[in-house]
């Protein structure tokens, strides 16, 4: 447990020092403030404003940032892992769980830290047409999408030694998933479909089953991806 906490603290420190994370925060906060001001002055609907921010700003920007910070989680320190960490009294499980907790934790903490104040501001200053339940479901759906992307990124970082290649593969998978899911008749599972439906979800106009299946499936796929990462990492020669 002590090793897990030490690695978690170390990794959080690395992320806090990362320029990518700092730029990511700025790029998320500035448009959020701008949209709040516009929605307030133009009497925009809160559901549309939140949907536009999450779908057009937060999701694409965070997609790229999460891809980089998670795909680099393990592969980014391939030399250091063996020399400085796993040659000491640390198990691979402790190391990887610490990485998972740190990277997914930062992703979700950052998301909630931006979205919760934004919801408060938008519903207070724009035209409030959202329902409490719909907002909760919408926020959790985006969180589950981001969590899944982060889990997939960590899995790829245990499989690939090259960070750039892992990032490219993850982004390519993300972009091509829409086409593949449409071909399989699972359009509702695509990120585009989930994000496009967000205004309806915030208003509480989406069917319960449509929301529940997304809220169940993405976390389940995340857990599977993380177990795959753990299995791969435990077999790997360092």
């Amino acid at each position: 447990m002590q090793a897990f906490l030490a690695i978690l603290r170390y990794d959080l420190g690395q992320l806090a020092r990362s320029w990518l994370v700092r730029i990511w925060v700025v790029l998320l906060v500035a448009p959020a403030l701008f949209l709040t001001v516009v929605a307030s002055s133009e009497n925009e609907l809160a559901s549309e404003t939140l949907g536009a921010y999450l779908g057009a700003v937060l999701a694409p920007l965070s997609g790229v940032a999460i891809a980089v910070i998670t795909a680099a989680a393990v592969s980014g320190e391939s030399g250091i892992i063996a020399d400085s960490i796993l040659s000491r009294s640390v198990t691979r499980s402790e190391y990887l769980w610490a990485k998972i907790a740190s990277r997914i934790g930062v992703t979700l903490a950052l998301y909630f830290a931006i979205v919760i104040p934004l919801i408060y501001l938008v519903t207070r200053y724009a035209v409030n047409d959202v329902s409490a339940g719909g907002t909760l479901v919408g926020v959790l759906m985006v969180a589950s999408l981001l969590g899944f992307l982060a889990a997939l990124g960590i899995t790829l970082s245990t499989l690939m030694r090259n960070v750039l290649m892992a990032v490219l593969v993850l982004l390519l998978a993300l972009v091509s998933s829409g086409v593949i899911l449409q071909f399989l008749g699972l359009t509702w599972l695509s990120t585009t479909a989930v994000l496009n439906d967000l205004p309806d979800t915030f208003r509480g106009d989406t069917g319960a089953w449509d929301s529940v299946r997304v809220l169940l499936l993405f976390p389940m796929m995340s857990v599977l991806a993380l177990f795959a990462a753990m299995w791969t990492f435990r077999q790997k020669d360092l």
Partner: protein
Amino acid sequence: MLVVETNDLTKIYDNRYIALNALTLNVEKGMVFGLVGPNGAGKSTTFRILLGLQKATAGTASVLGEPMSAERADLRRRIGFLPTNPKFPRNLTPIQYLEFVGAISGLPADRAKVQLARLLQAVDLTGAASQRIEGFSTGMLTRLGIAASLMNDPELLILDEPTSGLDPSGRKQTIELIRELSGRDRTIIIATHILGDVERVCTDVGIISAGRMIYTGPMTEMRRLARHGTVSVEIEGNTTAFEQQVHTLDEIGSLAWERLGSEFRITFLGAEPLPNYVQRVLGLVDRTGVELLHIRTGADEIEEAFLRRLEEDRTRGFLRAAAWAATQELRPGDAPEAPGESETPSESETVDAGVSGDPAV
């Protein structure tokens, strides 16, 4: 008590490259064991398996009496490791890094602070304690690696090329440090291809070549081997007469010699005591009337012995293959597979056993 024990340790990467070939290594408690071999011989792979960083394809590896695996953090807590050209988190300072090592080693924070201060002083990095690691020279990185390997006060210390990339003073300092660390129930294994380092600090030595242990024994035995049979004389005067009669010093086929300017290096291949050979050479000096400037036994000593072992091992390759094929009970006419191609070539050890630990073979 055996601190490190490997039996038929074999590592084959992707069914393409044999890094370790039925390696058998035994290191007893308190030894300073030098693992010597050319680059690519399998030294680092052996260490990585001993630390649970890599899995053996076949064979077993035990450390401190227990089998090692990736999840044996408890065993690694008792081991210190310095890799070749160690890599560290670059944006940390030595203090932050050693604190981190202390934390993952399970040391209480206050004890880790005391330990890191003591170690930074011992490796002469106190002045650089507040600098980021990214600005460190190779020597400083190695010294930091030594400090990190000692944070948990290990029973077994594994040093992979500890003097690689160091300038002469850094090298001397590191050797002195290793010498200080030996004893006190601590076992040290040093991998290197710098034979001078081994000679200075090791009590025992193992020669590894192409993933196999081709010799193990005490350092004193290695020194004896190095000197055995070789007499070098530097002469002046009628050197031609001396050169013409060198072959008479022993029976045909029992002698090899070479001339390097005024120096003759004569190697006797027989099993007589060295003083007999020296006596004969001095007799020839007397008979030919040359002036003796210098005489010594042994040549480049350890290096010479090391190279001789490697050469002997190469020439015995066919014998090993034949022995391996015989133990496989191949029918006459069947092509014997090279021993390294087997996943479990324990049979090759049958031949090795004669070489390992038996310097006379």
